[in-house]
């Protein structure tokens, strides 16, 4: 991954890059297929997050949040809601992008639309003006993590594969399972490494990459099973 550029993508999407860096990134993205793909994925992440909507919470969460932040009351939440801004670290973006790709990139999901997991949004019981910061914190808390969404995607694809495995010959099933185990082993190793060094950008990206490989293989296997029907 091109660190120089991916490091700037969050600011780019927020329209906060200086003009010359904005132009340089756009020029690079025009020539670099991977960065263009990454940017498109991240744009999807932001769009998906934005589509959750700014519903006010059921109750005013700010006092509790302020307490958790250690606020002594000096911080006064504004009533004016600024445009939503979604800033992510590169590892978060990488993981989120992997999941977004997994969820939006393949046809397997259309096989089981009824099982697709919707991102939960906090229900609104009583409309009330919401402090801007509370909305951001609420969404972050209520949204599934990248790992949860990945696990759900894997689970659904495995269900599809399980349903269709009878249509695949035993050797193919054995090979797929063997390779899923190979990837699982790599995912486990990467997860352990990330747990030991959570701020390591490479490990986070590597974990996302490896998770994406598993979803790609599951999708390929599910497509094979479907093709046999």
């Amino acid at each position, binding site marked *: 991954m*091109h660190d120089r550029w991916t490091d700037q993508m969050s600011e780019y999407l927020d329209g906060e890059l200086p003009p010359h860096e904005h132009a340089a990134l756009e020029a690079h993205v025009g020539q670099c297929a991977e960065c263009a793909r990454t940017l498109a994925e991240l744009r999807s992440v932001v769009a998906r997050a934005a589509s959750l909507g700014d519903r006010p919470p059921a109750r005013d969460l700010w006092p509790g949040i302020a307490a958790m932040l250690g606020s002594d009351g000096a911080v006064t939440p504004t009533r004016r809601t600024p445009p939503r801004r979604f800033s992510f670290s590169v590892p978060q973006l990488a993981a989120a992008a992997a999941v977004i790709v997994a969820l939006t990139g393949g046809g397997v999901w259309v096989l089981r639309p009824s099982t697709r997991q919707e991102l939960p949004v906090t229900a609104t019981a009583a409309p009330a003006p919401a402090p801007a910061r509370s909305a951001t914190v609420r969404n972050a808390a209520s949204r599934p993590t990248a790992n949860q969404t990945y696990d759900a995607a894997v689970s659904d694809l495995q269900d599809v594969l399980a349903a269709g495995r009878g249509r695949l010959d035993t050797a193919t099933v054995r090979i797929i399972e*063997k390779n899923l185990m190979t990837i699982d082993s790599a995912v486990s*190793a990467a997860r352990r490494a990330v747990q030991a060094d959570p701020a390591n950008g490479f490990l986070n990206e590597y974990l996302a990459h490896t998770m994406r490989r598993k979803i790609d293989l599951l999708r390929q296997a599910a497509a094979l099973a479907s093709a046999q029907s």
Partner: protein
Amino acid sequence: MLIATLATLAISLAQSGDTASMTVGRGDRFELTARSGEITIRTWNRNTVQVRSERSGGAALARRGSTVTIRTSGRYDAEDDFDVTVPAWMDLSLNDQSGDVHVTGSNASIAIQSVDGDIDVRGGNGVITLTSVQGGVSLRDAQGKISLSSVNSDVSGSGLHGDVMAQTINGEITLDRIESDNVDANTVNGDVTFDGPIRSGGRYRFVTHNGDIAVSVQENADATVSVSTFQGEFEAGFPVSISPRLSEHDKKRFTFTLGSGSARIELESFQGTMRLQRPLGQSGQTRSRR
């Protein structure tokens, strides 16, 4: 349904014994789906498709629009091998669920999928996509937008020009005599080897989890090299000036520049050795970093 459609639209064939032929024109493409047996495609400079099959009763060709295919008048037998000769310009789409696929001499786009057979292609020009689950994938002397993919076997490319993407899970990736400014090779359990000129402005990415990476870099290469690992090591067969990122968290991730640094080489191995080396005939010192 497909069989009925093909039968309805079938165009008469010059057929004798187990050989059938059909005259074709530019823009036509050849498509074949087989359940088992080998598919062998050869080329010639005649605008004719000819098929030989071991099927009892011979083989038949059919046309559906611009697509020429083999007409199936009954079910495929267990070991139906197909030997087809097509014009070199003819695009190919081949699907073999259980058998090897061989193509030689093509100068057109090629798409091949096999579940448990090997794919071996020599030639090709355009979009070339070769995919096997259990079998190995090999492509030689081709150009275009190239994608080589296996799940459980090796992937190799030699004498390729254009964008090259190669991937497998349990297998090695060997890319030799590659003329490209866009290469992406990744495996989970296997080595990755690349040999070819590093072009200015090009992008080269090599990833493995349990394996080593060996990349040839010519003396006058202009490249920024990124090395990322968790428990692996890096070696260079020639002097390089490494400026590591010294943060505690990123000791295993560093970059350095060769020449103007215009190309980008990314090496990622979770726990293997990554090595830059001179192409055959060039040599230098070894410096390693762990």
